[in-house]
């Protein structure tokens, strides 16, 4: 089932001779449950694509249709609800709220909706991510790998349609990187999460079912892997 479609997606900074085309008429689609790696050189437009799909940036032109809804041009209030419920965004530098503890960070998307998660669901999530005994700790007291797991838990609390990860292992050592990738595979298999993952790590990319290569804002290659 198609979960994501990008049509003629373009993002341009500046105007005239100073214009920079971060994304140039990108067309792209993904089905539900796909694990897609996005690779490319620095400045190629990978992160821009991810941010546009996640609704945290707005395109110059084009469409982003997620689960049947075009989010381009959506009013900010509706878009924020969309970000809460439909998309999970994971950054390279975790981007946790340093003044909230692990549990508060994980529950943040639901709390923004004025809701609390079911205890069983929350317990299952934190168990799966190995965070059960660190719920009262603050981000400053966690290792890099633990912080990334908190960021993953936060992105999964609402069981979003799509999980977007922007170089999630870029700041981790090998062991934590492997563990993080294992978590992504688990989410993909257990929750049928559609995952778009930006990575420079070839090994990490090969763990995805599909690799998309972006260069100078254009989609150059789209290949299925042997996984």
């Amino acid at each position: 089932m198609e979960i994501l479609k990008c049509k003629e997606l373009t993002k341009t900074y500046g105007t005239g001779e100073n214009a920079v085309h971060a994304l140039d008429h990108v067309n792209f689609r993904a089905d539900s449950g796909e694990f897609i790696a996005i690779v490319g050189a620095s400045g190629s437009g990978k992160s821009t694509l991810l941010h546009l799909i996640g609704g945290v940036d707005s395109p110059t032109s084009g469409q982003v249709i997620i689960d049947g809804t075009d989010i381009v041009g959506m009013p900010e209030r509706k878009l924020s609800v969309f970000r809460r419920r439909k998309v999970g965004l994971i950054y390279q530098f975790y981007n946790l709220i340093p003044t909230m503890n692990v549990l508060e960070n994980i529950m943040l998307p639901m709390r923004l909706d004025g809701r609390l998660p079911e205890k069983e669901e929350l317990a299952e999530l934190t168990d799966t991510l190995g965070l059960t005994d660190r719920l009262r700790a603050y981000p400053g007291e966690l290792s890099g790998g633990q912080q990334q797991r908190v960021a993953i838990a936060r992105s999964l609390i609402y069981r979003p349609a799509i999980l977007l990860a922007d170089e999630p292992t870029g700041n981790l050592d090998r062991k934590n990187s492997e563990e993080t990738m294992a978590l992504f595979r688990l989410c993909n298999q257990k929750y049928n999460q559609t995952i778009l993952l930006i990575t420079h790590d070839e090994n990490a990319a090969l763990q995805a079912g599909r690799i998309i290569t972006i260069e100078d804002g254009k989609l150059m290659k789209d290949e299925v892997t042997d996984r």
Partner: protein
Amino acid sequence: MNTSLTYAWSQLKASKKSALFLLLSIFLSSMLIAAVCTEAFLGWQREGSYLRQKAGDYHASLRETIPRDSLPLIGENPEVEAMLLQTDWEYLKLKDTKRAYITISRLNQEWWDSMPNKSLLKEGRIPQKNGEIMINTQFFTENTQYQVGDTLTLPAGMRVLDGKTLEYGTMGLPGETFAPSGEMKVTITGIMDMEGVSDYPCYTAYGYIDRSEPFPDTNYKVRLRLSHPRMAYEIMPQIAENLNLHPDADGAWPVSYHENLLELYGIKDPAQPESSEPSPYLVFGILGTLGVILLFVIIIYNAFSVTARSQLRQLGILKSIGASPGQIRASVLWQGLLCALLTVPAGILCGFFLIKGLIWSVAGSRTSTDLYSGSDLTAIPASVPWQLLLLCAAAAVLTVLLSAWGPARRLAKLTPIEAVKETSPAHRKEGIKKIKSGKIRSRKSGAKKPAFRKPRLAARLFGYTGELAENTLNTGKKAYRATSLCIGLCITLMIGAVGMLSAASLSNRIELSYFWQNQKIMLSTVQDPPQEMLEELKNLPGLKSQTVYRRVLSGISLTKEQLHPDFISAGGFAQESQGLGDYYDEQTPFLPVMLVGLSPEDFAAYCEANQIPPDVIQNIRDEQNPSVILVNRPDGSRRATWDKYQIADTPYLSLLPGDRIDITEKTSADQEGADGKNTVTIAAVTDTYAGIDDDAYPFNLEILTTMDHYRHMMNSYTMQGTVDQYTCYIGQSFDETAGLQETKEQAEKIVSRWYGEQDYLVRTVQDEHTEFDEAINATKTLAVIFSLFMGVIGVSGAFSAVSGSIAARRKQFVILRSAGLSPEELMRMFRIESLLLILTPALISAVLGLFTILLSAKLFYYPTVTGLLASMPWPLMLALIFLILGSVFVTYTLCGRIVSREPIVETLRKELG
């Protein structure tokens, strides 16, 4: 708990330094708002309390006395809440007493309850039945055979002179007699704390009108308290009409209103639209509060901007995971509200107690002070209504919300990725502006950035570390805005306010130094002061001159032709710059006249000094043809007042010796009830003042005569009882060797041997200046306190901004160090940055402050700029200013020391994530 609230609370706990600045600013703003509102309210209450205490709790009175039989027409009127009655004054003839009479007026219960008479009671009790009286102290001190409880039966009647009844308050006049009309039995129940001057032949007493008995058959003075005071101006004319009273030629009913009290309640005379101004207390309260709100919105807005900016990334994260714009706004607003919750109640209470404390410390517990119009401060309620405090709290919270709204709204508008990457549209716009202006070109276009920029002032003065300091300061400019503003305000206020107040004080001192007389003795006596006493006073050390005189303000009505052409050419009444000349009509001028009666010796000396021929002097003394000397100069041209009023020293009137003029009891053309008049001949015209100082108004006229003539002229004035007309002045001028405090004590010692304590008063210019300075110093203290508050806010803001800014730029400093900048050079950079930070506000505010000083010197006429600068308390002010500026420097040094000692690699690792 609401997510925005949770986030806000966690942020406040985590960033205590920036929260401290916010907390302090909010505390101070709420304290000032409460102080302003409390002072406005208490001032309003004080005035109301004073008016009711001193002038009575009533709304209006009838100017004509009402016969007994007409009283029910008033009392039964449903609009009348209370009818206060006082009978006409009667005299009771005494025997074997120092003074000849008791003068008595009887009051009903409503009058006793509402008017200040009862506060005169010193001992005993106030009358409660017919026949009971309360009488003044002197009755007992001058006649020791009497005491409280005594009953006297005395002839009742009136004092008469030449067939005319003498009015209440008339001094003892030669030839007066007593015309009895009956008898009165009185019982003394109380002693009144009230003294009459020695020349007044009566002891004053108040009696009681018992409503259970028939009212005395006499006329009554009536005052009314109305059920609906807002309708006072409609009801009173109706009451007057019902009593068959008649309006005057202008249609005005014989009704007086307790205008001051009515205006305090916002009740204005609709016939006088020019009086429809709002209460000054209300204006002060509203404008003062708005001023505080505006000032602190500016200060706290910048603090919020810095705080919000430091949370940009986190708020971006919240946005990226689904926080709506409203939730982002709420996160910032909640931070402000939480700070307000913690500090506003404390600030409100402190503001309230600050004003209470200031009132008590400045005015003390004196029951009478010029500063507070003689109100009894002990009567002021201890509290203000809770509604007022709530209003103050609401205003303080509004200040916080207004301050936070802008930054909150801006943040809510950012896209999540801009916030996460900590790049705002403002930055991008700035970048595009630089692109368009050609300062920076995009790499893509191939153009190159200029290799070197021109070195700026800091670089030229301090080298490369100066350039680094200036660059880093410029990038963090916004963070320091609040600090710069507060420091600038502190310095400007301190210099400017202190300068202006010093100018007022110096101006007063200089003005007083121009006076001819630096000591004045006032005697309440109709008789001439004893010659022996005058001779003793002349022997006071340092005395240069002494003038004995009486004086009363009168008036003269002239025609336009009687104004001198030179006076008209110089500008006439328009010469006066403050607009006081607008009260004079050049077509039909009515001038206030200071009618002065000089002692024989002083009159002779004046005539000799002005070469007035002996025959003229003889004429002046002619009782059949009273004459006067016209001092033909407007009062405002005197040296003491010239700087203030700038009136040209020209002849004033075109009158000549031999002209006849009418000197009236009226001091203004529309004054009612002062019908006395004397027609006199001008015996001589001079241009020299008699060397006496009195309240000078620019267009008063001085007319001199002998003291005997003066007394004779007073007989025609209807207000014969006015003590002022019968006051004798002894004006003395001492040289610089005399200490005025000593001369005052010596003069008092001499005078007290002839006069009772209640009959004289000695005042020096030093007394005038001291009282003026007390008021000035109180205001100066407030101004310095307020400027110090601003300084404290500035310093705390500096601490917050500087430490926050240095922490935020840690990566930058550690990279500089890794590139080779030594710790000492880094510290030097911080010190230069601190100097650059404080220099701009210090210079601007110093210039503004000095400008205020120049303006003050111009406004207050007398002081020169150099004189004013010399009179200001520079050591204290400079010490405070350097303390405040130094605090910023110390903050930089302390924070810089921490940063300069951090290990490079670990810091880099931490900062780079």
